[in-house]
């Protein structure tokens, strides 16, 4: 069926209707993004007193840094772990909450709470809970003979930031999965049950495919989350350490721009990051979306 609207009376009306969305996109995306691109070709001091055009110098300096490639690798590990864990755990929780439980509303409310916690606060909480000598949970870990030390051990630090980031994101994913599950017609599942399909079989052949639009949406959102939104947690939990083991690309943008006052270099990094995320999202839409059943 073809959908089309006809505006006979006014030529301006369609533009007026489009305007709010276009203005928002322009003000909150195109304008800052173009500023970042512009900034990445400049060298400027923190106060903005001296500013000169340096062409691609910021990019050259960036790609000459071994730390930058290391941060790319760190980002890959971090984003894969966070997206995979937060999606699968949230799906597990959502399927459990979707059952007819007495305490389901309470359970759901508790599940959603972590999303309301500010990243920095969440970071500080995790930092103290797992601080090697002060942490309430670090002591039992050490008691079990594990030499838990995120201050020096890069893998421990990575585990810690992944846990904090996953913990925060589960709530969001949970909410969407639950809504997705509730919109699956019960009759389809019951039909499967009558035909003798067990719960696992029903899940993988009926529920999971029908849930795929939600899963795909969450995959895109989660990738964007880990790429852009996690620096607050990393800053509070590890500060990118130890020895750069948790310095992801977005944390490096923050550290170089805000702590280092190198706005040009930081802008160049954010442009690279933007290109990567746009490419990733495009790939997802081109290849992963084919498997989605609407």
């Amino acid at each position, binding site marked *: 069926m073809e959908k089309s609207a006809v505006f006979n009376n006014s030529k301006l009306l369609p533009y007026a209707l489009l305007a709010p969305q276009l203005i928002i996109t322009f003000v909150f995306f195109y304008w800052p993004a173009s500023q970042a691109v512009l900034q990445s070709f400049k*060298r*400027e*001091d*923190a*106060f*903005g*007193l*001296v500013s000169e055009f340096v062409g691609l110098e910021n990019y050259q*300096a960036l790609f000459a840094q071994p*730390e930058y490639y290391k941060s790319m690798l760190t980002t890959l590990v971090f984003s894969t772990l966070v997206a995979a864990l937060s999606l699968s755990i949230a799906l597990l929780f959502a399927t459990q909450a979707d059952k007819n439980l007495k305490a389901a509303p309470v359970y759901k409310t508790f599940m959603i709470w972590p999303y309301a916690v500010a990243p920095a606060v969440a970071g500080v909480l995790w*930092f103290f809970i797992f*601080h090697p*000598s*002060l942490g309430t949970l670090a002591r039992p870990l*050490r008691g079990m003979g594990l030499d838990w030390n995120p*201050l*020096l*051990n*890069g893998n421990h630090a990575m585990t810690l930031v992944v846990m904090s980031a996953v913990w925060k994101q589960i709530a969001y994913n949970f909410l969407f999965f639950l809504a997705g599950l509730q919109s699956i017609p019960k009759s389809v599942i019951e039909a499967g049950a009558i035909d003798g399909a067990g719960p696992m079989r029903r899940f993988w052949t009926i529920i999971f495919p029908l849930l795929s639009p939600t899963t795909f949406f969450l995959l895109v959102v989660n990738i964007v989350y880990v790429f852009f939104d996690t620096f607050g947690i990393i800053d509070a939990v590890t*500060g*990118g*350490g*130890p*020895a*750069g083991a948790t310095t992801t690309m977005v944390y490096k943008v923050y*550290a*170089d721009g*805000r*702590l*280092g*006052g*190198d706005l040009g*270099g930081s802008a160049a990094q954010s442009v690279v990051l933007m290109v990567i995320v746009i490419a990733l999202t495009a790939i997802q839409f081109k290849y992963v979306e084919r498997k989605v059943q609407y």
Partner: protein
Amino acid sequence: MMLRHFGLATTLSATLALATPAYAATELQWWHAMTGANNDVVNKLAAEFNASQSDYKVTPSFKGGYPDTMNAGIAAFRAGNAPHIIQVFEVGTATMMSATGAIKPVYQLMKDAGEPFDPKAYLPTITGYYSTSKGDMLSFPFNSSSAVMWINKDELKKAGIAEIPKTWPEVFAAAKKLKAAGHDTCGFSNAWASWVHIEQFSAWHNVAIGTKANGLDGFDTELKFNSPLHVKHLQNLIDLQKDKTYDYAGRANAGEARFGSGECAIFLTSSGYYGTAKGTAKFDFTSAPMPYYPDATGAPQNSIIGGASLWVMGGKKPEEYKGVAKFFAFLSDTNRQARLHQESGYLPITKAAYEKTKADGFYEKNPILQTPLLELTNKEPTENSRGLRFGNMVQMRDVWAEEIEAALAGKKTAQEALDAAVSRGNAMLRTFEKTAK
């Protein structure tokens, strides 16, 4: 950064701040980063100044931690509404002083306003940090501290250590004894890793952190702290980290709690930790000078300061600058300085205030507060111990700490880690040099 927790818990009343009558006075904005007891000190000083005259009104506002306050000031300057006075931590000094036009140098301010101002009245180890190589004071020292070694006397006694260790080999030996006596997770430790093991360590041993008097004489400085002495020290720490005779406690000062809890009985951190130690430690403690290597010639030299100073922002009205100058003169008053030092644990900034506190016999009762002063004035400062001034220092400290962490985790040798810290730092200095002309 060093003095986040400092000072005696002064029982000051904030009501003074509210008692200022409302008349048409010139308002002076003062942005600062002081929390807790320190915040009370700031408010009380402003209130006292406002009550002492009627032409000016100083309004303090808290802007978050040190980096936050500095960034807030920079952002406000870019937006054209900077405060009159902003508190900036010592590592931000190079960034601030290179911003000609954004700041008003204090010596200039005092001259223009015609306020009596004698740079020689201030303690040179403190003001040197904030002055040009010609001795012109650029910012006004506010809260200063130095690095000291905190000692849990009870635990040392239990471990059979009769005397407080003076040298690094003695500290290592004491830490081994402490470990044997039950401190199996921490013989000794420290906060502010880069500050203690690179910056203070270098000054205390009279070895260069960088050329050009550690950057004080020019931004074309190069880092030098991969010397054999530095490598030897880091190697010792690496060896001791393996069995936790030394145990790394993070880049900032969260690890200080390990001293207060009794876990680490020897702990190097800021002298500004005094207030927190007094409030939390349930044992007999004291502070001692930082240890040194006895085979290093000239050690111990003198330590350098940490803490923050007050910068005056540029582009304000002459009338407002007059008020700021009056406020600084007010802060420099001998009795006020002496009282501030004795109540809060801030180092005094004038010679007269130091002499007065000594003459009052204050240090006989409170030797802990004298330790940083003895360190700072131990010897006449050299090129290596006057202070340091590196661009991008806020982030560079993290870079240095990263390399120390890599070494302690066994991923790099001491030499490799320090070489990397130096070369990465140099790259940052060159970037900074290009923007700071």
